[in-house]
């Protein structure tokens, strides 16, 4: 069996895409399973957007997460979907770090309610961000290689 570096990287990218895409779609599903107002109240706790924006995000973000998760898993528009995944995870992670540094005792809101921001949640989301950045870089590298 040929276990060249390229092949191992390709397998790693597919595995990461399935894991990250699956987690994203699952996070969206969990948010849809609870009242949107609860997620909106969770967003409001971060104190970064006005109430109307919290309502809008709470109603739309879960659907977007599911769509993005599916796109990442199936490998459709890989560069666009991985950039979006990295971007959104970067925003989430930054907001969580900011809340932690400000000493806010609030829920992360990542996988529904009852998930307070802690070093554990920061490590989890930080790992997801690292994975997303890796598959984004690989998506662009593959493009350059094939071109």
């Amino acid at each position, binding site marked *: 069996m040929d276990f060249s570096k390229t092949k191992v990287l390709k397998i790693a990218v597919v595995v990461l895409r399935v894991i990250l895409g699956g987690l994203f779609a699952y996070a969206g599903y969990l948010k849809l399973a*609870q*009242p949107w*107002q*609860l997620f*909106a*109240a*969770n967003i*409001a*706790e971060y*104190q970064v957007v006005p*109430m109307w924006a*919290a*309502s809008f995000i709470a109603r739309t973000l879960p659907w977007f997460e599911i769509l993005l998760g599916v796109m990442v898993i199936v490998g459709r528009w890989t560069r666009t979907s991985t950039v979006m995944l990295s971007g959104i995870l970067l925003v989430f992670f930054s907001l969580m770090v900011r809340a932690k540094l400000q000493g806010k*005792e609030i*829920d992360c809101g990542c996988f529904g*309610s*009852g998930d*307070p921001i802690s070093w554990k949640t920061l490590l989890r989301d930080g790992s997801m961000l690292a994975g997303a950045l890796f598959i984004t870089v690989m998506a662009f590298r593959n493009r350059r290689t094939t071109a």
Partner: protein
Amino acid sequence: MPNCKSKRTIDFMKLLALAVAALIPCIAASPDVDKNKTMGNPNAPLMFELYSDFMCPHCKVMHETILPSIVQDYVKSGKAYLIFREFPLQIPQHVYSRAAAALAVAAGRIGKYQAVNDALFKTQTSWGATGKLWEAVAPVLTPDEQKKVQALANDPSVLAEVQVDVDRGMKAQVNETPTLMITYKMKQQPWAKWADYSFFKSYVDGLLKN
């Protein structure tokens, strides 16, 4: 052989037994609570169970700023039945939480739950630092009531009542305070996000429209 009258009596008894059997789950499902720890109409369409810890600063904010709106909008209007539940958190910083809960429950036994509840939250900062709970509670009770509450606070049935609330909360997966458990048409939804009352109101009003 039973005659017609006794057969009717037996049929009636059978029907009665069936009715009682059908009612048993309803009786079991109804909240076991001291009436002094409740507000509003027990037959209201909504049931709110407020799980609080007397040492929790967020519970103080909830009690003093958000709860009055909830009472005004839903309890006084007959839309919701409110039950106060004790949920002393088992964390080192909340060393007096369980004793405070026991005092409130003891006061409830003599019809003074709300007065003691208000007093404990109002003076949370001072007794939270010193542990002098009685200094917070005594001023809202008469000397006679003080004696009764002091005696009741260490009563095993009062301590058990606190534990019943804690167990109930744990079973309902309450993991933070303050949490308001909203029950509507047998469906439960915990609510612990109080940054903006309007989202809670929007959710509850939406439930009532269904």
